[in-house]
């Protein structure tokens, strides 16, 4: 992919969204991106893509404490930072806060094993004056609050460097404080620079999702992941491996939940290995890279990870418990199962690659059975069915089924207020598949399984009744079946695993 093309993939998002926080970055049009790149324009240049400093605006800069960043700011005009200068050193505190935040973030990512972006001394005259990483504090006017822009690459589309634009004062934004906003932006935006030090063209889900993870990993008290979680959890039916389109694709930010799962489940190394692998395989999409490293280093794969991720997502919001998944899942909200009644038999239920359809029925019944039968001709690979008995505050137990043929799983639900059913497609390539979903609390399994009447018990002829065949009755039934050469209709294959929702061990 050409540099100009993947440049567009980095800064996605603007404007109000249904989440409580808008995406950080502003999309750039193709023309803007190309013009900006060709001009090599930093925000101090008249050719710069907005937001930028005015022609007559006096722009100053200060170097961060460890000498790795240069923060550019102005004191007058729309881009001015707050004039507060508590230590009286002549430099606005705001610029110093930014410099210190970027230093902390850089130290942290180095500690996780990530590369830092190289010097930008070679990108041209408009490089901020030296090889330091440049952060420009400009007014985004509420439309976004940060952007990482690329300047160039050592190799084609790899090992790239760039610079950062960040909101100057966060006036009118919904952050708890200037310092918190700076920490979020520094950790999020600078992780884009870290990504660029590997391969920046992995698409919006990988770039934004892992940047939201990075921010959370840097400081768990920051609320970016929590704010964006509903953008994914409310649309789990969307494919995680397809980048959404549009100027404010908050779904990509919400995908931070998946990277959070990877980080907690496999360790920080999983995300690091993904980016390292991107250097080795410069044209391979992120989900294939992830599948590769999961297989190589953990004996798992994308399918197993995505399925477990779908189970972890049951234990979010009010149902979160540390021993069932995320360490801070209580802050992740928005899982939106589609309500159904019992019994339900629904044809043409679609599920697509790397997606999960959640359904919900009332609890209280002794057992709830779910089956999912793919339409004839559909590939049964990597399809999973989860059935979870839940209350408003916890996941009680989860059953799971997979394999070819009809998937069937049931849970005891007498103590459950709801039962949540998840149809999980763990493939990372392919198109949608269709099948029939059936949900029932009927003890016979009807209508989800064929209830074929057996041979009449002789006692029935005497007007008696029996809830179940006696031992002799079973023997007689077996003898009759053998004599007739008949076989009972094969029941749907069921794999029922009761785990009390404990965290699953390494997928094998």
């Amino acid at each position, binding site marked *: 992919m050409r540099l100009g093309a993947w440049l*567009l*993939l980095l800064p996605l998002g*603007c*404007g*109000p*969204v*249904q989440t409580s926080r808008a995406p950080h970055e*502003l*999309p*750039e*049009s*193709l*023309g*803007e*991106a190309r013009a900006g790149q060709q001009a090599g324009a930093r925000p101090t240049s008249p050719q710069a893509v*907005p937001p930028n400093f005015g022609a007559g605006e006096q722009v100053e800069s200060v170097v961060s404490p460890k000498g790795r960043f240069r923060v550019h700011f102005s004191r007058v005009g729309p881009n001015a930072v707050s004039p507060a200068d508590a230590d009286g050193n002549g430099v606005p505190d705001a610029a110093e806060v930014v410099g210190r935040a970027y230093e902390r973030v850089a130290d942290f990512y180095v500690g996780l094993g990530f590369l830092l972006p190289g010097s930008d001394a070679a990108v041209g005259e408009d490089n901020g004056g030296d090889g330091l990483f440049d952060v420009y504090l400009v007014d985004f*006017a*509420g*439309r976004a609050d940060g952007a990482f822009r690329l300047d160039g690459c050592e190799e084609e589309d790899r090992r790239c460097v760039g610079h950062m634009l960040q909101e100057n004062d966060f006036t009118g934004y919904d952050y708890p404080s200037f310092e918190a906003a700076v920490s979020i932006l520094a950790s999020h935006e600078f992780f884009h620079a870290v990504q660029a030090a590997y391969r920046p063209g992995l698409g919006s889900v990988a770039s934004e999702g892992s940047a939201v993870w990075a921010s959370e990993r840097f400081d768990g008290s920051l609320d970016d992941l929590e704010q964006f979680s509903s*953008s994914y959890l*409310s*649309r789990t039916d*969307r*494919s995680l491996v*397809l*980048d*959404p*389109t*549009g*100027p*404010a*694709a*908050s*779904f990509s930010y*919400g995908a931070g939940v998946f990277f959070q799962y990877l980080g907690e489940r496999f360790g920080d190394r999983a995300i690091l290995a993904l980016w390292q692998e991107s250097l080795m395989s410069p044209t391979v999409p992120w989900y294939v890279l992830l599948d590769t490293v999961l297989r190589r280093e953990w004996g798992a794969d994308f399918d197993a990870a995505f399925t477990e991720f779908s189970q972890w997502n049951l234990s979010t919001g009010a149902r979160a418990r540390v021993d069932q998944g995320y360490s801070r899942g209580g802050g992740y909200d928005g899982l939106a199962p589609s309500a159904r009644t019992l019994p339900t038999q629904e044809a043409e239920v*679609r599920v*697509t*690659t790397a997606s999960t359809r959640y359904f919900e029925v009332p609890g209280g019944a002794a057992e709830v059975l779910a089956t999912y039968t793919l339409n004839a001709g559909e590939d049964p690979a990597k399809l999973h069915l989860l059935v979870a008995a839940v209350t408003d505050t916890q996941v009680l137990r989860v059953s799971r089924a997979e394999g070819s043929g009809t998937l069937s799983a049931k849970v005891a639900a007498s103590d459950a207020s709801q039962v949540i059913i998840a149809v999980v497609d763990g493939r990372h390539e392919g*198109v*949608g598949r269709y099948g029939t979903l059936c949900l029932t609390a009927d003890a016979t399994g009807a209508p989800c399984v064929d209830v074929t009447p057996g041979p009449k018990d002789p006692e029935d002829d005497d007007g008696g009744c029996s809830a179940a065949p006696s031992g002799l009755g079973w023997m007689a039934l077996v003898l009759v079946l053998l004599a007739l050469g008949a076989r009972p209709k094969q029941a749907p294959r069921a794999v029922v695993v009761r785990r009390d929702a404990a965290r699953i061990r390494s997928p094998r």
Partner: protein
Amino acid sequence: MSHTEEALPKRAGQQGLWVLVAVGMSLALLVSCGEDEPKVEPEPEPQVCEASQVTCTEQTIDRLSLLSTVSTGEVREEGTTAGEFHTFVDSRAGGLTPTMSYTYLRFTPTGLTQVQVHDQAALASTDWDIAVRRYTMRVNSGTSGPSCVAVANTPEGTTFASVTSKSAAAGEFKTEAWFDASCTLIPDDSGLGGPATLLGGFWTYQSCVEMTGRIFIVRLADGRHVKLEVTGYYEPSAQQVCNETHSVPQPSGSGSIRIKWAFLP
């Protein structure tokens, strides 16, 4: 049909198995020759095309995030000029990550009327002409739907009032084709990654969705033609600021589509 039903009992008692053969053949003839029977239903509206198979439907469902929830967005007419319509469509669809289908619309003599159909069913429906969600607008043809609604551009600078016939079209009428033969997406040129729809030229994106003022001529499935201009995506005052400054104030009222249109003689 009635002829066969009357004949059956008479022959059934006389010919035994041969009657069954005859019935089977009769039914086969009925099926094959059914179109020759007198029609009792009302004549359908004239069509210039037969419903066609939509290609790459699975890719379209995924790429365009087509849903199975019917849009509840409001549609209302705001125009006051005789013979000319100015239709408001609430195209928010639940937000920037939509949770509802496109709003499906049909051009009628009384205005654009909503067709109650969700995205995935719309892939098999010829009942709609045009669909809109957020700033994506598409017509029912090609990769978008089974009908044959086609769109032609007009020369740059053309005004809505100046278009008085379909001859104002510049170039041929085209049907939707945002996938190539291998179902690989053909994106628009905005850099936002959306599909290259025929009506996508109504906007450009700098830092906000600006109106281009481009006039389109839409050929409907029944052969009628409509001239069409999308006049806004934001509320009018915000749209004006966006058009003039390339930046939109917040809140902008995004998802407030307004379409000016009129049937052409």
